[in-house]
């Protein structure tokens, strides 16, 4: 049975290879191949899951060693897989949501002439992501880590002819690379500390080294997680990543890839457990991002960017939970899974809306769409209820636990973190209600809008040439798109309950991540009640703002905070001024230095040699007698030398 693990990765990898190398003749069937192989991977995952359920808790973790990858003196890197409950959870999430999104993309990308390639990239992403979660050592994880980065790069920039897409793709890759640097330094630290970087030996040996080393490793891992999961300060790429096709945003930038950071931290739990400082930093990062993303999400008018802010914020919850240590790991992963369902559903809904609205993304130009796209409305609505934590739905169970755990951290920290988490819940309710109201309720602001919005550049992606630029005719999306949305909505509704009631998920994951019950200063009921209260406040405020009053088509100037939030709280501006400008000046001056100084020294030497020989040339005046004098003088010197030598 273990031998199937490699197949999990191999199937989508094969798909990617076939689709990308296959050439035009596969254009007609490419999407089917891609979907089939993704589903195959899901089926294999399901078989392995069933097999795993059939075993005792102690024997559930299995591994498969393929071959020795980099055998060098004192350095053993292997290609080997490890499938335990944690990995299994991810495998099912990735292949499940992944397959659904493949199906969705068949419809969504129907008119794109490069659809085959799109499916190739999606398959590549699945393979890399599975490699990431199945690897049994950090170096192989790193391969998957960069592999998903590559797939993300390719998919964000899928409509490469749009300069904004190409720039966003590059930005995503670069910011991720900064995080990757953290991961590679962490691996190097592990190597020098433990002599290996396989999960097992490293995590077992954490007790044998000092806290300083572990804190350093933990912080570097956190840096990596920040890059991949778009946490402050490396969050800036996620908003721009929405340039990619919507299924990509749903799969990669909501459900799976961006949660890899959480996986990394939970997987390295032993290291963090032994390094409280690193944990503290992790929780702070999570808390800050949670608020950051939520605030950004409140201000964005672009539906996808609003959802991206939400994603950032929700992952902030997960990172916060992961930073709490054993009391939070399970809930981090649980929220991750439920978030995977409802956020993917929300994105697919957003895609469906855009599909029906001539690819308009500005929510101020939506409104009243519930009549035109009922299925989308219902599924999106269920996702909405799930994310704000409506009692009984997925988000309720998972988010509530995290807030509880935050309070359970204890001491002042616990109060602050818990408070932030609660505040975040309120803001989440606010901005998600805003999205909901602006899109599906209110007046139909898209009427009498013949001119295309400025958001649509003049170079339109071929896939989005669906309607004319005249008034949009909102309509429901085809079956291939709605079915995945329905399935995901189903997950959004029931997953949380399924996992949460009776602590099923906790028992499932506990053998891997350990679990400790924190001692919360507040009772569970109190937390739940206060969550309900902030929820109502958030929804109410949003209703007052967007439900009662008409939404202006042109965004009002807004307060200072709103304007800053629209610009991602000025972080991009900071990056631009400090890093981009500074870097440009640095490189330009270095080019100058290279040309004038480094090269100049050499060329200067050459020039001075030239000058010297120019002078010496004058000695060669062409007069035979002059030459004869030097010969004669030379003869005299020779005689003198001979005499001297004999005298000595």
């Amino acid at each position: 049975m273990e031998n199937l693990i490699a197949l999990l990765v191999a199937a989508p990898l094969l798909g990617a290879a076939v689709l990308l190398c296959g050439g035009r003749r596969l254009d007609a069937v490419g999407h089917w191949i891609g979907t089939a192989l993704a589903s195959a991977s899901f089926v294999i995952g399901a078989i392995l899951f069933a097999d795993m359920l059939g075993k005792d808790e102690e024997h559930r973790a299995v591994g498969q060693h393929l071959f020795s990858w980099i055998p060098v003196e004192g350095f053993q890197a292997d290609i080997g897989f490890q499938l335990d409950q944690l990995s299994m959870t991810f495998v099912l999430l990735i292949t499940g949501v992944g397959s659904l999104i493949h199906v969705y993309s068949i419809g969504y990308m129907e008119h794109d002439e490069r659809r085959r390639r799109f499916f190739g990239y999606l398959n590549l992403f699945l393979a890399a992501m599975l490699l990431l979660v199945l690897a049994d050592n950090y170096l192989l994880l790193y391969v998957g880590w960069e592999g998903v980065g590559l797939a993300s790069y390719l998919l964000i920039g899928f409509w490469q002819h749009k300069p904004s897409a190409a720039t966003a793709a590059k930005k995503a890759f670069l910011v991720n690379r900064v995080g990757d640097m953290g991961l590679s330094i962490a691996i190097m630290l592990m190597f020098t500390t433990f002599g290996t970087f396989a999960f097992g030996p490293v995590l077992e040996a954490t007790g044998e080294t000092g806290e300083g080393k572990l804190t350093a490793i933990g912080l570097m891992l956190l840096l990596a997680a920040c890059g991949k999961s778009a946490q402050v300060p490396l969050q800036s790429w996620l908003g721009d990543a929405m340039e990619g096709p919507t299924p990509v945003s749903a799969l990669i930038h909501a459900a799976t890839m961006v949660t890899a950071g959480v996986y990394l931290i939970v997987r390295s739990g032993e290291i963090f457990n032994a390094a409280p400082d690193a944990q503290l930093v992790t929780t702070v990062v999570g808390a800050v991002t949670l608020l950051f993303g939520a605030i950004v999400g409140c201000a964005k008018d672009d539906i996808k960017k609003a959802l991206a802010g939400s994603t950032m914020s929700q992952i902030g919850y997960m990172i916060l939970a992961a930073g709490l240590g054993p009391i939070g790991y399970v809930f981090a992963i649980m929220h991750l899974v439920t978030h995977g369902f409802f956020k993917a559903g929300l994105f697919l809904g957003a895609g469906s809306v855009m599909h029906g609205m001539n690819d308009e993304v500005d929510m101020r130009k939506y409104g009243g769409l519930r009549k035109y796209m009922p299925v989308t409305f219902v599924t999106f609505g269920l996702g909405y209820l799930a994310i704000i934590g409506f009692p009984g739905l997925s988000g309720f169970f998972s988010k509530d636990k995290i807030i509880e755990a935050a309070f359970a951290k204890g001491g002042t920290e616990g109060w602050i973190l818990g408070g932030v988490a609660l505040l975040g819940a309120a803001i989440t309710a606010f901005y998600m209600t805003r999205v909901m109201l602006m899109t599906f309720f209110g007046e139909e602001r898209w009427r009498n809008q013949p001119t295309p919005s400025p958001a649509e550049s003049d170079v339109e992606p071929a896939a989005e040439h669906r309607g004319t630029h005249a008034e949009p005719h909102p309509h429901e999306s085809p079956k291939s798109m709605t079915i995945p949305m329905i399935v995901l909505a189903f997950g959004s509704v029931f997953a949380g309950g399924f996992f949460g009631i009776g602590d099923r998920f906790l028992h499932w994951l506990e053998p891997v991540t350990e679990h400790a019950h924190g001692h919360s200063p507040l009772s569970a009921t109190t937390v739940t009640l206060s969550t309900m209260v902030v929820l109502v406040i958030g929804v109410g405020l949003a209703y007052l703002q967007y439900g009662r009053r008409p939404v202006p088509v042109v965004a009002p100037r807004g307060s200072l905070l709103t304007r800053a939030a629209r610009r991602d709280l000025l972080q991009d501006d900071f990056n631009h001024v400090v890093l981009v400008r500074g870097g440009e000046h640095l490189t330009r001056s270095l080019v100058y230095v290279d040309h004038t100084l480094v090269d100049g020294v050499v060329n200067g030497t050459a020039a001075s040699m030239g000058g010297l020989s120019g002078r010496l040339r004058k000695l060669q005046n062409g007069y035979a007698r002059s030459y004869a004098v030097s010969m004669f003088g030379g003869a005299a010197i020779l005689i003198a030398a001979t005499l001297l030598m004999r005298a000595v």
Partner: protein
Amino acid sequence: MTAQLAAHSTSLAAYSTSTGEAFQFWVLGTVAVIGALCTVFMKKSVHSALCLAGTMIILAVFYLANGAYFLGIVQVVVYTGAIMMLFLFVVMLVGVTAADSLTETIKGQRWLALLCGLGFGILLCAGIGNASLNEFNGLAQANAGGNVEGLATLIFTKYVFAFEITGALLITAAVGAMVLTHRERTERAKTQREMAEERVRKNVQLPPLPAPGVYARHNAVDIPGLLPDGTPSELTVIKTLRDRGQIRDVSDEALKDLKALEQRSGERLGRGDRAEEAAK
């Protein structure tokens, strides 16, 4: 003198030479040095050549004194007699009267040359003085069978190859000198007829320029001479008048007269038809 010197040869084995030779050395040596200096510093090359010839003759005497009889004679006959004469020929060829300026044109050349010369000389003398050269074997033994015979034996045995090669060298040099000085005519000299034909072909100015007044009916300076075909040649009027335009053209009358004259003479000679042809 030879006999006298030959008498000396017996004493050549000694460390020092006879007083006679010493006397001869100091006198002739002084003269030789003066001759050498004159060679260098005489303005006219003829004088230099003569001074050099003198020095060479003195050297010939020294050769004899050193027991090199054959070389002494050769020095006189070949060097002084042939080579120096060659020099004189060339001097004549280049110009015997030409006196060189002794002012130096290259900056610092003279001082450098004198400095080097002085230094070189001193060093050379120092070297000679330094060498232990007091042992003089003398040539009595070597010259026992006669100097010329001794030399001949060596030349035709030990040095025969060098000898042959120098022979070849001499011939090469002779040929080389011929090649260098000989100027090959690249084309045959033109005959007078060919030169005349060339002028006709070029058709620039067939006859020599006419003098003023040739064919003129008037001998005033402002009337141009006429070319054989009767046209006036403005070249025969002085430039001043030409520039002022004061040329009296009488060519029309002259041409008319000429035509009448030709016709008349043609009728008389019965060549009318040919003239007609020419007119056509």
